């Protein structure tokens, strides 16, 4: 008899399969009924500054070992809780654990009243004021600005337009600057098949379904393979927690303010203005070479939303003497969430920040 078919091995396998079948049934029912949704964004925090829907959160930590504080600027089209999914899968918790003082700028959910928000509203008003509020709250002279995805674009614009701001370091994660490199997601508007006004709905904003649809179109079959992976791991409680949290986030986009969307399409996408150096905000040219602080450009090698060619040119555009690049074997979201984030990506990012910070 082969050792893999001894009675004890067979019994063990049957027991395992029965156990998994029970768990699969239970988790499947819970998933179908929408029960046991993981609570996301649970790290303790306090609102330290607020303007309209925008809030600046400071995460609680009794172990701050480095200064200046890190101010995270999130994207305009998704929810910021992807950075703090749940205990054990939280970029914010990782940075706190690295001894950093973490602030997060959350834009809330745009509605009709926010439809007129332009890129200037963020780069000239909200972010500079949030920097001031974070400095006040932390008692620090400077901040490290960390922008994720479109939040990285806003951070770049802020630093370029306000060189007087005390930004010690700038970290950009999966930040598009060469919009020609984002062919797939921008093709419809770039080539004029659709104009901004075709997409903006009567509320004055781009509806979240459009944003979600654009992301889905990048990998149309991925949803089916995700369901296959779900079925394969339905018995696994830990997997289910992650799947549900991530699934909730990917279906939870927010409206993109119409005025900022128009500028994004007309300047960043159609004229590729960040690369061409022709971007104008508030009637003035934006020159990224005025950015002098140390810059870390974090690239996700498997990013299908912001592919490498779209994010790679950052060091060539800024005027910093130190502009480094950190390439990580991850996807767009895998930079900040999931097992690989905790093991590979976040240690690299936190390490760079602490190396460029002071011990307190």
């Amino acid at each position, binding site marked *: 008899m082969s050792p893999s078919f001894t009675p004890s091995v067979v019994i063990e396998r049957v027991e395992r399969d029965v156990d998994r079948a029970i768990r699969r049934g239970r988790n499947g029912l819970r998933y179908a009924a929408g029960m046991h949704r993981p609570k996301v964004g649970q790290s303790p925090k306090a609102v330290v500054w607020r*303007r*309209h829907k925008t809030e600046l959160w400071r995460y609680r930590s009794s172990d701050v070992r480095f200064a200046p504080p890190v101010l995270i600027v999130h994207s305009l089209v998704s929810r910021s809780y992807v950075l703090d999914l749940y205990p054990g899968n939280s970029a914010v918790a990782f940075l706190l654990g690295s001894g950093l003082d973490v602030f997060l700028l959350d834009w809330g959910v745009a*509605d*009709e*009243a926010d*439809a*007129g928000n332009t890129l200037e509203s963020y780069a000239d008003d909200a972010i500079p004021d949030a920097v001031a509020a974070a400095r006040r709250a932390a008692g620090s002279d400077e901040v490290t600005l960390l922008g994720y995805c479109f939040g990285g674009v806003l951070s770049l614009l802020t630093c370029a337009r306000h060189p007087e701001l005390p930004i010690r370091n700038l970290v950009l994660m999966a930040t598009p600057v060469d919009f020609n490199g984002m*062919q*797939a997601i921008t*093709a*419809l508007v770039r*080539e004029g*098949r*659709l104009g901004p006004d*075709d997409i903006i709905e*009567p*509320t*004055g904003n781009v509806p979240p379904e459009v944003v979600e649809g654009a992301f889905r*179109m*990048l*990998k*149309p*079959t*991925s949803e*089916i*393979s995700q369901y*296959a992976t779900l079925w*394969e791991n339905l018995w696994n409680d830990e997997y289910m927690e992650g799947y549900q949290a991530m699934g909730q986030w990917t279906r939870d986009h927010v409206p993109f303010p119409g005025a900022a969307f128009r500028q994004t399409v007309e300047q960043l996408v159609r004229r590729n203005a960040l690369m061409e150096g022709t971007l104008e905000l508030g009637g003035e040219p934006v020159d990224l070479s005025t950015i002098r602080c140390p810059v870390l450009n974090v690239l996700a090698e498997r990013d299908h939303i912001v592919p490498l060619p779209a994010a790679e040119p950052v060091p060539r555009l800024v005027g910093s003497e130190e502009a480094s690049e950190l390439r990580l074997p991850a996807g767009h979201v895998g930079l900040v969430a999931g097992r690989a984030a905790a093991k590979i990506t976040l240690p690299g990012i936190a390490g760079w920040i602490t190396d460029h910070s002071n011990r307190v």
Partner: protein
Amino acid sequence: MAAKPRWRQVFDAVDRRVAGPVEAGTRSDAFGDLVAVSWRLSRRVQQEMERRSRRALHLLNLPTATDVRRLSEQVAALRRELRELQDRRP
């Protein structure tokens, strides 16, 4: 690491063959044209439906989605003015 079940291996093999061409298809000019035309068409159909139902509902003196939208636009304009006043406050 445990081997993948047989059904998953088959699924992955099919997925590898199908995903590439489907993605290439969604990136093609023809698909882009199709999406743009369907988008405009659906908007036009929606506008036409709204126009017709508006006429019927107004005959019965009932408010329509367009009326509600106009009201919410007015509320949004008021909120924006309020914000400006708040921002100007020292």
